[in-house]
């Protein structure tokens, strides 16, 4: 039995006031800011916060901007439509909920001047029109923007109507029983909704004249709209109360359905930004993990000493966790400021698109940013940090007694779980988060094996390099050093691969998104629609047009029919409750017939007419758009009865089609096989592209085919293109940010490996290596590392991009051959140059300094 100082009278003297971890951690962190690894941690965390807050703030504000934009196209934040006047109770309900309400009436009527008559699409507005945006009006003194409608007694005309009626501002036109003074020509309306029901040229007039005109009669085909503008909160409050109205035949309009081009592009841009934000967070996480290793190495002595002086594991954990918490909080403040500046930059890029009065940034993205920093710290640094508490006090006597490093798998699993959680939080889609995470983990295992294999190959190749030659010597030594530090090199290889892959993927997705957007609206996207082409005019129309357009013009026959039954039941009884007010049940549908599947349509179920059954038991095979079928709850084999004129035709769903509503081409919900509809009265519709300078053709068409309605959609097309351009710039801005996060990983990783490299170059110098050789060896080592990381990064990026395309963007994956060249070569160059430059201070040290550097700050 051995005993030490057994009978001390002082043994009970010691008071325990507790460990001053809070104060000490604060002081410790302030001191630590001098250390490169802490600076790397700080930068990485600040970038994670900046990325998430920037994108959070931005998306938050963009969401509101989109609502306004949508509101402008729709005419309000909410648009209710029905075939009869709205009662006052509904108007009151909206107004009580702080919504500004404006009423509109839409109908088709004849407008006349003397003996000349023209059908026009009438829009009757009140004093509150427009709730959003301005009318581009030519009142005879050039184009001006006005935020009101015509005054009572006045009418504004579309230029085409004025041309057809041969009137100008100052003349009069007759609408029903009233005579209105033409006081302006409408170049552009803020609310362009109404689709192709408004093929007739526009005449806008004041509500006060509508009654006098005698046009608003019970039974006439009139669409009444109630438009409301207000805060999202106010809209949210009334929406549930309005939902019941849909069962009564009121349609609540939604911009995404009405203008899918805008919706899709923005939805994808938002997804891109979220993805880029996550990539930046992932990269910052990798940087945190790399920097933490060095941080822990550097603090092992402190931990051992504290342990020696009586610190418990709990106290050590608290101390270092608190130190890093301060760091994370400080980084959050800096990151949030950066994020604020970044979102301001993004908004600046999108100024032309977003309305000026955006709400100020809310606190939620900020909270999310801080939460992200803490999560990244806990997930990517946590397991490595635990090593500090496992340090033995005996290390003060025996330096070699370092605790085992945290298991690489534990680090990966914890980091993955945390990142998976963030994925879930940001995407709101647990399935996607889980899928990405699982895929990521599998990839990591594959990369791990691949990396080990690659390092083995590098070493083998290096030893086989023939002797002699300074470059070969440097290459051999560099490769040997890399292969000797197998586990550290493998870690760096993985970190760099993931970094390159994330950077490449964000760049790839950007490129593919832009290409898709450009493909979506190529230069020759149709900018004119022509409808109401009579069968007798068909050939002449094609001849006139064929001189001016490249593509052979396709004319689609169009027969109007109403759905009178679904599966032999009244339509409203046969469809789900929320589809009862669907436009397809309230209006006549444009039906067409075709032998072949139209361009841009894709069969998703069933068979096309040539392969399927013909007319059986009086049922005609029909092809229906899959979105409509889904809304109405229809599947293959169901029947739809159409009333066309006085006839009824029963169609059986034999195929479902997916089609691109963004295509600016005629699209049809229902297509019949040939030889069914020909006997009914029909007209033709077509879409074509006319260059701006070919105005003569459009004028000729209007002149030669007065009955044909020609609709110029150039303005809408321009709006969509402008939006895409701006979103593209925003996407590029965010890409730059992700690249910055990538550089932070390089910085952290190179900082972490600095002492080891210093030690190695010190040893080489002791053995007689000169500056040139050491510089070359380090350059070679970094270049090999960069090359190998680039190869693995290319593989990872291809797979990840393919996964993201399929799961997120609905794009077809493709192989990017350029990547396999750019990433390895670019990686070798990037890591080679940055690594070499960052190691300059190491090379300047004397061997004494280099060899003593290990384990110190």
């Amino acid at each position, binding site marked *: *039995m*051995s*005993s*030490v*100082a*057994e*009978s*001390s*009278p*002082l*043994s009970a003297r*010691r*008071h*325990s*006031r*507790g*460990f*001053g*971890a809070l104060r*000490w951690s604060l*002081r410790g962190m302030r*001191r*630590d800011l*001098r*250390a490169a690894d802490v600076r790397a941690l700080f930068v990485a965390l600040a970038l994670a916060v900046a990325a998430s807050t920037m994108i959070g703030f931005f998306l938050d504000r963009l969401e509101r901007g989109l609502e306004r934009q949508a509101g402008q196209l729709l005419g309000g934040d909410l648009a209710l439509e029905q075939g009869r006047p709205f009662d006052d109770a509904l108007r009151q309900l909206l107004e009580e909920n702080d919504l500004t309400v404006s009423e509109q009436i839409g109908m088709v009527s004849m407008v006349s001047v003397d003996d000349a008559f023209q059908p026009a699409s009438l829009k009757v507005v009140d004093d509150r029109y427009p709730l959003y945006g301005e009318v581009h009006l030519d009142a005879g003194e050039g184009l001006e923007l006005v935020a009101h409608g015509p005054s009572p007694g006045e009418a504004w005309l579309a230029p085409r109507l004025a041309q057809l009626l041969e009137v100008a501002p100052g003349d009069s036109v007759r609408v029903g029983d009233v005579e209105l003074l033409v006081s302006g020509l409408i170049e552009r309306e803020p609310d362009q909704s109404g689709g192709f029901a408004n093929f007739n040229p526009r005449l806008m007039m004041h509500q006060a004249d509508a009654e006098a005109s005698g046009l608003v009669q019970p039974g006439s085909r009139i669409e009444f709209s109630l438009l409301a503008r207000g805060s999202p909160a106010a809209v949210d409050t009334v929406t549930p109360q309005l939902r019941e109205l849909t069962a009564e035949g009121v349609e609540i309009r939604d911009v995404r359905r009405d203008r899918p081009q805008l919706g899709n592009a923005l939805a994808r841009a938002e997804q891109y930004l979220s993805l880029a934000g996550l990539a930046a967070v992932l990269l910052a996480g990798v940087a945190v993990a790399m920097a933490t290793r060095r941080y822990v190495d550097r603090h092992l*002595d*402190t931990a051992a*000493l*504290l*342990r*020696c*002086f*009586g*610190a*418990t*594991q*709990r*106290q050590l954990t608290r101390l270092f966790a608190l130190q890093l918490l301060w760091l994370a909080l400080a980084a959050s403040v800096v990151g949030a400021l950066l994020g604020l500046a970044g979102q301001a930059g993004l908004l600046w890029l999108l100024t032309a698109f977003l309305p000026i009065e955006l709400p100020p940034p809310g606190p939620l993205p900020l909270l999310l940013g801080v939460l992200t920093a803490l999560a990244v710290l806990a997930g990517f640094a946590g397991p490595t940090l635990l090593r500090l508490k496992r340090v*033995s*006090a*005996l290390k*003060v*006597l*025996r330096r070699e007694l370092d605790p085992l490093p945290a298991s690489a798998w534990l680090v990966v699993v914890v980091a993955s779980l945390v990142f998976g959680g963030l994925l879930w939080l940001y995407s709101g889609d647990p399935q996607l988060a889980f899928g990405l995470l699982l895929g990521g983990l599998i990839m990591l295992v594959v990369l791990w094996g691949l990396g080990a294999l690659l390092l083995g190959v590098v070493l083998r190749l290096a030893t086989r390099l023939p002797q002699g030659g300074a470059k070969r010597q440097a290459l051999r030594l560099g490769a040997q050093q890399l292969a000797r530090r197998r586990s550290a090199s493998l870690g760096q290889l993985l970190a760099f691969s993931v970094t390159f892959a994330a950077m490449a993927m964000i760049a790839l997705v950007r490129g593919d998104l832009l290409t898709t957007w450009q493909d979506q609206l190529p230069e020759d996207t149709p900018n004119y629609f022509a409808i109401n082409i009579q069968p007798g005019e068909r050939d002449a129309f094609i001849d006139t047009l064929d001189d001016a357009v490249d593509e052979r013009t396709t004319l689609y026959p169009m027969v109007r029919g109403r759905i009178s039954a679904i599966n032999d039941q009244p339509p409203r009884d046969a469809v789900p409750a929320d589809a009862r007010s669907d436009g397809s049940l309230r209006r006549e549908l444009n039906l067409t017939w075709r032998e072949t599947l139209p361009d841009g349509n894709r069969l998703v179920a069933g068979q096309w007419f040539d392969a399927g059954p013909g007319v059986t038991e009086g049922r005609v095979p029909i092809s229906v758009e899959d979105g409509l079928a889904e809304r109405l709850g229809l599947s293959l084999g169901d029947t739809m009865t159409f009333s066309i004129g006085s006839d009824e035709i029963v169609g059986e769903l034999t195929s479902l089609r997916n089609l691109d509503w963004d295509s600016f081409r005629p699209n049809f919900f229902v297509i019949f096989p040939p030889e069914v509809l020909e006997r009914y009265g029909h007209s033709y519709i077509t879409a074509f592209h006319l260059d701006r300078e070919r105005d003569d053709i459009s004028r000729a068409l209007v002149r030669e085919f007065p009955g044909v309605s020609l609709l110029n959609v150039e303005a809408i097309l321009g709006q969509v293109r402008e939006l895409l351009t701006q979103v593209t710039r925003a996407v590029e801005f965010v890409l730059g940010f992700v690249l910055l996060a990538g550089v932070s990983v390089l910085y952290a990783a190179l900082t972490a490996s600095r002492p080891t490299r210093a030690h190695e170059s010190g040893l080489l110098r002791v053995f007689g290596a000169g500056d040139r050789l050491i510089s070359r060896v380090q350059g070679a080592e970094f270049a090999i590392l960069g090359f190998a990381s680039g190869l693995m990064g290319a593989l990872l990026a291809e797979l990840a991009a393919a996964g993201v395309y399929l799961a997120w963007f609905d794009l077809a994956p493709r192989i990017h051959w350029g990547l396999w060249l750019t990433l390895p070569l670019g990686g070798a160059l990037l890591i080679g140059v940055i690594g070499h430059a960052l190691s300059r201070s190491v090379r300047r040290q004397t061997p004494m300094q280099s060899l003593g550097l290990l384990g*110190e*700050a």
Partner: protein
Amino acid sequence: MGKQVTSGDKPLTILSDLDLDVFPGETLAILGASGAGKSTLLGLLAALDQPTSGELSLFGEPLANLDEDGRAQLRAGRVGFVFQNFQLLPTLTALENVLLPLELAPLTDSEQRGRDWLTRVGLGERLSHLPKQLSGGEQQRVAVARAFVTDPQLVFADEPTGNLDPATGKRIIDLLFALNREAGTTLVLVTHDHALARRCDRCLRLDGGQLEPLLLEEVEA
């Protein structure tokens, strides 16, 4: 008490059947050649490590009942250390290094105590210097101040002069013993410096894993 470790496949006995009592207030030197196991013994006595056989108690508390955290708490504020390689934290100033043990066992006037102790070891003017700005002797003085700042009952010194030139080493030893006398602390030091050992009340030699008493007269100068 004994200590065995496994080296390769074979067990290696470093210490065997030691029987040792260290009494309050005494100064004890443990002499031994390099590799004799002096530091292992010091680690065991200071409860930094556990014996593989036998029993060991510190301040009357059997260590077998305590886990590593329990042993750490037993040391807190009651044990001071002086190491051969000083073990100062490079990013902490002289004063902060001295205050380190007080963070774990705070006293009411910690900061003032730190200043006082640094003044007593002759470094009152170098409070805010970092270790790399101090000479070897000065660094060891900081370490000595750090060992005494908590009013410990027991101070362990592991080759305290091992990294110093003889003249500096002597000044450190003078200081160590003077402070020890003033504070009435128990001092256990392991060394191969005979001159240092001769200044202790009692001297033991560690050889072949065994301790044998050594008369002070037998310790060669």
